[in-house]
């Protein structure tokens, strides 16, 4: 065990300057893709509940397709497949866009759940007591929808962090690719990949704890939406 850890002490100074920027790229991918997927998800959720039939149909079709195709395939299509159409994206952008296109569908379902869970009576009671539709939305509907949406939305952040590892395949200089590069120089696959794993864990675990605490707080006052 000591032997195992001493390897890290030995190579730390050589690895760190390469690992740190890679972690930055991973975090950047996560943040960018998350922001984009939230926007896409909101659009899809609204679209699926729209009264205009082609909009509804398109949003539903998009979600169905995105759920049946692996994120990796979407990444490849965005990075390679758009070139004949004249669109060549760099690896980072392609990563952000590809991940967002995939996760946006899931976010859409999460947001849709939030919108649909609101019972019509809630809104009516708000109007009956003299609130304008805007007030009703602000004080009654939005807080409730947030409570429903926040836990799964936060969970998706963690999933997205994991999925940034897929950008390895499209040569984005994130953590996995950097670890792989380092193994070809140092021949220490176990140490390097365990290190990568540990870094992911170090970021994901606190997020997971925070998500769980927030979820518990949100579920108070939710069970009966009559």
């Amino acid at each position, binding site marked *: 065990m000591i032997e195992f850890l001493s390897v890290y002490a030995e190579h730390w100074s050589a690895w760190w300057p390469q690992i740190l920027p890679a972690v930055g790229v991973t975090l950047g991918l996560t943040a960018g893709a998350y922001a984009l997927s939230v926007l896409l998800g909101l659009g899809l959720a609204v679209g699926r509940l729209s009264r205009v039939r082609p909009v509804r149909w398109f949003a539903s079709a998009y979600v*169905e*397709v995105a*759920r*049946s*195709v*692996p*994120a*990796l*395939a*979407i990444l*490849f*299509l965005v990075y*390679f*497949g*758009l*070139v*004949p*159409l004249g669109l060549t994206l760099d690896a980072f952008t392609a990563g952000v866009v590809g991940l967002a296109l995939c996760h946006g569908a899931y976010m859409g379902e999460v947001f849709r759940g939030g919108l649909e869970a609101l019972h019509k009576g809630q809104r009516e009671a708000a109007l009956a007591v003299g609130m304008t539709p805007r007030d009703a939305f602000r004080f009654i509907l939005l807080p409730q929808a947030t409570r429903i949406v926040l836990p799964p939305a936060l969970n998706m952040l*963690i999933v997205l*962090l*994991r*999925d*940034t*590892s*897929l950008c*390895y*395949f499209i040569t984005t200089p994130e953590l*996995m690719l950097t*670890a*792989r590069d380092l*193994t070809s120089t140092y021949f*220490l*696959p*176990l*140490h390097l*990949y*365990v290190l*990568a*794993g540990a870094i*992911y*864990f170090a970021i*994901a*675990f606190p997020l*997971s704890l925070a998500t769980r605490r927030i979820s518990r707080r949100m579920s108070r006052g939710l069970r009966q939406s009559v």
Partner: protein
Amino acid sequence: MTDLTAQAEQIAHFSAVLLRGAVTAVEITLGALLVAILSGLLVALVKSSRSRLARAVADVYIEVFRGIPPLAQLFIIYFGLTYVGVELSSITAAIVGLGLNGGAVLGEVFLSGVAALHYGQREAALAVGLTPLKSMRFIILPQALRITLPPLTNYAINLLKETSIVAAIAAPEIMFYARNLTTETFQTATIYLLAAILYFMLCFPLNRLASRLERARAAWR
């Protein structure tokens, strides 16, 4: 006209190659699914034990496998273990890696499935004279199965999509063949599009099945 037929031929060729990958993908999925179910049951069992230590161990297992990307897990198993002398074939590594990962997910599924069963069900079964074993067989387990089937199916579908990453450890599944084809013919867009369509054709019917199961379960409750 020959240009079109040439293209059609090429697409047919691509599809045939990719289909070979699909077979591997399904194989890996089934193998990993088995491993996942077994380890998931084990996790669920350990987590419902009275020993705090045992529960903590299960928790660590779950958190570790949920916090680390499957790709990293695969690399550790396939490349990393060679450092300590363990060499696995890519398919074995894939099945083990994805399976253990799935164990963390399914463990929680099984736990919530059993928890969803009202405590009174078991009591009623015992009260009516069924032995604990029989009550498990005729009352608890069938219901637990019905409850966990939809999330299980969802997991299986996600697993199938996840097999796409085993191309990184040279397992001969769809993305692996796709990449090889692109290096041969440079028809990148077409090939990856075909791969995506292939996945879609595999997963979409499964998704519909899962939805129907979900609806049936909701109705049954």
